[in-house]
């Protein structure tokens, strides 16, 4: 392959400390190099904004529940239809598009790596099959451990090492990337028709509390030296007054890792509500942002909602039931044997709904009030808050106070009494946006070690060139231009190949799936542990030897090996 030389690029590369310089980038053999070969294809970036390939650190794009969202929303498939064109497959769908639809749309927005937010270990094969059909992004899978019986038994016995051993076996069996806890304890309680209402409630039968599960898993994660931290969806999602739970959870987190956070809090917008009912719901983003600012070992993502129609899907079964009770729309709920659960229901976020307007404001406030952009990442918890195609609009809202003021005229006029958003003058700059959409993600996920998220020599050649000239446009005024620019790259380069140009995908993709294997001493190998194997014999519907995902499901797997300190 001849390689590529990008000339005249206005580069922002936060991880390498480049804050906006015009420079050249040389690419050879899928890597960024010092010198391009003489026959390299030259791309003139014409001083356009050039960033490392985008990384989405929390998105639901693949797996059984996404697919069930597709089943139950035939009306969604009427939107966003595109015909076959060149190498592009037919796509359809808006909030739950086809896998190729997801992949093409992410690619034209400059995204090259996506973390699937929740993969039930038992249903990992489906997730991996859809990963291979999402060809333009490298995929990672957060693996659910929130209601795992073996984990909860280990937590009850206060045996961190055993919990770590279960995690190590499961991650390598299902080719997962990191630990995801979704409403820890709550999904298991939902199996008995209940839920947990605070982090100190006991899970029925197991007698452990969410706080104990979270604390144990954070320590187990560090014992295994996994690249990412525990990825937590707090308890009480979407309940007015739940900011107390969020603050208590943040208070639990020890600082155990020098290189990254010790806890990743996801879609915090849904966890920052004050008040006690839907009638007096108000924003507590200031309290939550202050707690995050004072707790450097925590990273959060926004979970912004945007107005319009979407589909909510989460492993948090009881929450989806509550949503169903609100909307009385079609819904589904699912229990995954000894592991977790899930639920799906379509929703509509309206500008006329005060509650939705408050939610919309909270997400933006979190991003604007977090002092350190490395601690607040941009996300919509796609598709729960909004489909990811809304990211450019969120970027424009964060960069332009004028845009926010214009939106203020369109939403429920009572909103301003419940939220501090319109008093915040801050406008984020290009550098902060670059941090919030790629660099901080790479750091938080711990994938800089495999060359993600930066553009220095040695990095993977994932580059996005946007049709935006930062020295010519003022984002606080030309927000429309910012929005248009971020929704369609001039070039998206993935592992040294141009994959998308001006909104069109130009090559067949070949992505890889990144997973982790923590090497544990033989004493902690769960495959020969009698208690653990008994679970399969007595309760699971599959045998232990059929449980692990075979290598054939990962045509281009990339394994990150770690040595556990057990």
């Amino acid at each position, binding site marked *: 392959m001849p390689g590529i030389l990008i000339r005249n690029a206005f580069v922002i590369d936060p991880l390498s400390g480049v804050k906006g310089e015009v420079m050249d980038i040389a690419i050879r053999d899928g890597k960024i190099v010092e010198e391009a070969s003489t026959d390299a294809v030259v791309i003139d970036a014409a001083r356009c904004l050039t960033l490392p390939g985008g990384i989405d650190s929390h998105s639901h794009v693949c797996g059984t529940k996404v697919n069930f969202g597709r089943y*139950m*929303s*035939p*009306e*969604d498939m*009427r939107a966003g239809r595109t015909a076959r064109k060149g190498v592009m497959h037919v796509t359809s769908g808006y909030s739950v598009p086809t896998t190729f639809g997801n992949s093409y749309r992410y690619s034209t927005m400059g995204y090259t790596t996506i973390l699937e937010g929740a993969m039930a270990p038992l249903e990992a094969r489906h997730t991996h099959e859809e990963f291979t059909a999402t060809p333009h992004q490298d995929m990672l899978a957060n693996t659910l451990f929130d209601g795992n019986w073996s984990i909860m038994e280990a937590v009850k016995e206060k045996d961190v090492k055993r919990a770590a051993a279960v995690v190590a076996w499961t991650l390598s069996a299902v080719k997962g990337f990191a630990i995801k806890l979704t409403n820890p304890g709550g999904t298991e309680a939902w199996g008995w028709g209940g839920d947990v209402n605070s982090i100190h409630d006991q899970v029925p039968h197991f007698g452990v509390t969410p706080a104990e599960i979270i604390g144990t898993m954070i320590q187990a994660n560090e014992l295994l030296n996994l690249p990412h931290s525990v990825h937590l969806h707090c308890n009480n999602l979407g309940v007015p007054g739940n900011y107390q739970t969020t603050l208590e959870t943040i208070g639990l987190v020890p600082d155990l890792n020098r290189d990254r956070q010790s806890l990743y809090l996801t879609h915090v917008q849904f966890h920052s509500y004050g008040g006690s009912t839907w009638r007096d719901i108000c924003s507590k983003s200031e309290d939550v942002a202050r707690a995050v600012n004072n707790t450097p070992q925590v990273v959060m993502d926004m979970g912004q909602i945007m107005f319009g129609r979407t589909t909510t899907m989460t492993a948090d079964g009881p929450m989806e039931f509550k949503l169903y009770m609100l909307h009385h*729309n*079609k819904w589904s709920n699912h229990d995954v044997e000894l592991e977790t659960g899930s639920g799906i229901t379509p929703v509509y976020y309206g500008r006329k709904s005060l509650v939705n307007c408050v939610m919309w404001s909270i997400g933006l406030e979190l991003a604007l009030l977090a002092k350190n952009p490395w601690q607040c990442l941009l996300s919509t918890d796609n598709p729960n808050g909004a489909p990811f195609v809304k990211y450019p609009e969120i970027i424009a809202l964060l960069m332009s106070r004028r845009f926010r003021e214009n939106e203020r005229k369109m939403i429920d006029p009572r909103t301003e009494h419940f939220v501090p958003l319109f008093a915040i003058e801050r406008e984020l700059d290009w550098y902060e946006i670059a941090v919030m959409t790629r660099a901080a993600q790479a750091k938080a996920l711990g994938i800089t070690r495999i060359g993600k998220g930066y553009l220095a020599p040695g990095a993977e050649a994932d580059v996005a060139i946007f049709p935006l000239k930062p020295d010519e446009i003022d984002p606080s005024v030309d927000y429309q231009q910012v929005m248009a620019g971020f929704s369609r790259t001039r070039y998206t380069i993935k592992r040294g190949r141009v994959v998308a140009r001006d909104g069109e995908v130009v090559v067949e993709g070949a992505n890889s799936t990144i997973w982790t294997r923590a090497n544990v001493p033989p004493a902690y190998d769960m495959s020969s542990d009698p208690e653990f194997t008994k679970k399969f014999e007595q309760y699971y519907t599959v045998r232990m030897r059929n449980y692990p995902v075979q290598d054939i499901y990962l045509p281009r797997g990339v394994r990150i090996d770690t040595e556990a300190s057990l």
Partner: protein
Amino acid sequence: MRVILKTRPREKPRIPIEAEEIIPQNFLRKNDMKVFEGNKERTLEDLFFVTIEGPAVSPDQVEVVLTGNTGMIKRVGEYMNAGRIIIEGDIGMHCGNFMSAGEIIIRGNADAWLGREMRGGRILCEGNASHYCAAGYRGEKRGMRGGIMEVKGNAGDFTAEYLSGGDVIIHGNCGDLPGVEMRGGTLVIGGECARPCGNMTGGTCMVFGKAQRVLPTFRSNGSQDMDYAGKRYRMNLFRGDVANRGKGTLMIRA
């Protein structure tokens, strides 16, 4: 302007024609309209003898007349917003879906999905309509939202499913489950039907014939006299569907 489209004889007349381009506003500005015959793209001239009489400056002055063997033509009048379409014979599936204004007159029978999810305008079918007449598409919570649908003959199953606005008048009989999931609007059935209005949450349904197998989840609300189309009827009133906390009204002739 009057556009007359007479079907040309076809070698295989059972192959359906997809003709969503046949709407009045298109005849004002387009002269290269495309239709599909099976999976082959054709021009309008390939399949029809096209005659255009008189001028028009706005779409509501356009009248399209379809004659000949029209029973296999699908999606005529989709998204139409003005003017008038007259079909001299039968018409295929999906006629007039999503239409927002204008008028469609069908002299023969209509196949399934007639006027599905229409928002406004008027459809008159002088023959029978098949299943899912004036209903919603799969997955959508609201079906027909406005306008008038009148069928002089009978209609099939799931008539006015998800009806949320507008009037549906069926002079003949309906099949199974008319007005199921209704949430607004008015459904009038002149003849018989079975299991009307399951899961309805709003709107009004009147049945002037016999309603078979009325669901047990409707609460009887007495009876009253009612004038309709110049005649006086004694109607039994029901409220429901209580299984869905519904506040709809079902009236059945006593």
